[in-house]
């Protein structure tokens, strides 16, 4: 059983709509189920160099450590009593869990491009109207004493975190004081070993709280 020629472009398409980590989880699980370790290893070697987050997830699966079950409990604790939660960037499986765990909160989503463009309408349709589309220009409308901002982190190095590029456009010095809490949800718990294409380094300092999976 060999990896199809379209695997890399298929990963890119899924990453645009599901997020890098969610797409990596999907691919690792499906390829492992379809062709076992040899197929997943082939995928890691072919797709991994271009998509380092897939490289991490595939490697861990091959090492017998498949991705852990997503538990949003610590994120909910970190968000405290926030009534408005503005999520920056998409990680579909993580956001699914968070939305279910915050039945009373108003949730907004800022989707960046960062070289990958998903279909906005389709991404949002999965949340049954619970998640609102927030353009970059409207971020400050969500600010306030009971507002929290959250983004997904792809590992940390020293005083920096790897985040989606859109985070840099949002979390400027003018925005930070306007939100009560800035939460970073580390969806990998491990920094990429390869050059972290598609994500960027950002200082950890603005975050009020970092949470693991």
């Amino acid at each position, binding site marked *: 059983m060999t990896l199809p*020629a379209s695997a890399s472009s298929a990963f890119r398409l899924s990453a645009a709509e599901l997020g890098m980590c969610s797409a990596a989880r999907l691919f690792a699980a499906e390829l492992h189920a379809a062709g076992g370790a040899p197929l997943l290893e082939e995928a890691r070697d072919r797709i991994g160099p271009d998509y380092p987050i897939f490289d991490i997830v595939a490697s861990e699966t091959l090492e017998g450590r498949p991705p852990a079950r997503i538990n949003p409990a610590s994120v909910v604790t970190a968000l405290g009593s926030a009534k408005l939660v503005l999520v920056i960037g998409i990680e579909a499986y993580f956001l699914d869990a968070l939305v279910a765990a915050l039945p009373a909160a108003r949730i907004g989503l800022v989707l960046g491009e960062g070289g990958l463009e998903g279909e906005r309408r389709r991404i949002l*349709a999965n949340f049954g109207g619970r998640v609102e589309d927030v353009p970059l220009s409207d971020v400050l409308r969500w600010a306030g004493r009971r507002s929290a901002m959250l983004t997904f982190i792809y590992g940390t190095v020293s005083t920096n975190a790897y985040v989606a590029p859109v985070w840099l456009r949002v979390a400027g010095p003018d925005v930070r004081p306007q939100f009560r809490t800035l939460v970073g949800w580390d969806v990998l718990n491990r920094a990429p070993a390869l050059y972290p294409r598609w994500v960027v380094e950002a200082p950890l300092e603005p975050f009020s709280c970092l949470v693991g999976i």
Partner: protein
Amino acid sequence: MSSARVILPSILVLAIVIQALVPSRRVLIVATAASVACLASATLGVATPPRIFADVPWDVLVILVALGLISRMFAEAGLFDRLAVSATRASRADPLRVLGVFAVAMYIISGVVNNITALVLVLPVLHVLLKLSAPSKRYVGWTIGVMLVACNLGGAATPIGDFPAILLLSGGRMTFLGYLRLAAPATLAALLILLALVLLFVRPTADVARDKVSARLTRAIVEAMFRGVVIDRRTFVPAAISLGLMLAAWTLMPASWGITPDLICWLGVGLALSLRHALGERLARDGIDSEATLFLLSLFVMVGAVRKTGIFEEIARSIQSLPVSQAGQLVAFLALAGVLTGVFSAGPSMAALLDVADALSHRMPPRAVYVGLALAVCAGSSFFLTAATSGPLAQALTERADIRDGEGRPIRFGFFEFLPAGILSFCVIEGVAIVYGLLSLRGAFE
């Protein structure tokens, strides 16, 4: 009157030619030409604007707008997303099945709702499947091409599927059930013949890899992309109930009651929008397809002005005086309708040819003329990518989707990529139209 017979048809033909050459400005061109036609008609003493406006088939516009709003409600309910996922499941992400399943799905959808709305929501899912399968240029051309033709056939299958059929329903030319009974089998036959020819002889999947891993990944990705999309019952149920009531009324209500198809449609849509009043208000304000409505209104105005000159009756008389049998005259008319539609698109040719059809229907069985005309217009709409509104839209959406082959080269879908599918479809549907017309002449459907 003689100068009017030259000037008014010239304005119509010129407008149709220019809008075909510059489709990006077609509404402006046709709307401006309609105002010029009104001016010419008034100054040449043919008819005043109120008389021309009085002849506009407003019932057709009412039905178009109302059905467009119902389609938007179904779209808001997430129906098309779920249908697209179901089509993916049914196709098992196999390239050959994808072509067939999506064509059949679009045929069915287009018969009931506005095919533009359906296309905008279903085509992106097909794009996802195409992007995931490392397709060849040929496969993309045929798959999207056949799907577009299926849209046209679905639109012609029912009296509410598309503008030409709605035009036949209006003015009492045909009853709802009468049209459905005759057109649905004919269009279904055309679709099945087309699919058989494509799958057995064209074989567009011959150069596309078909492996189990790719199919498994594709299914998993599509399921993940639509993992949380469910049909919103609060929106779907009122729209479905209203459409069901409308279909029942169109089918069962006697014409003697005076409740016309457009009134049924208006009442039904009013009910659907009122049951979801917040969404209904938003759709009533922003959900009307003003482009299509203004385009058709302008065409009706121009055609109305030309009609007053009596030129359409003359064309009908010319066809009837052709030195051939009645069957030959019908074939000539249907061939003319197909070619004119291919060049000028369905709206203009149907609006102009309906008057000729009306005249022909006095000497031939009306069903042979009207249903044959609807099929011939459908054939013409499928000839070139530019002949139906859905074509350029599919082209734009496909360009934006950035589909690439296995080597990473971008795949285009434009006029020439569609042409092979268009030529085959035109021949098949026009053939069905002519065979249908000839059989009707011989009383085969009595």
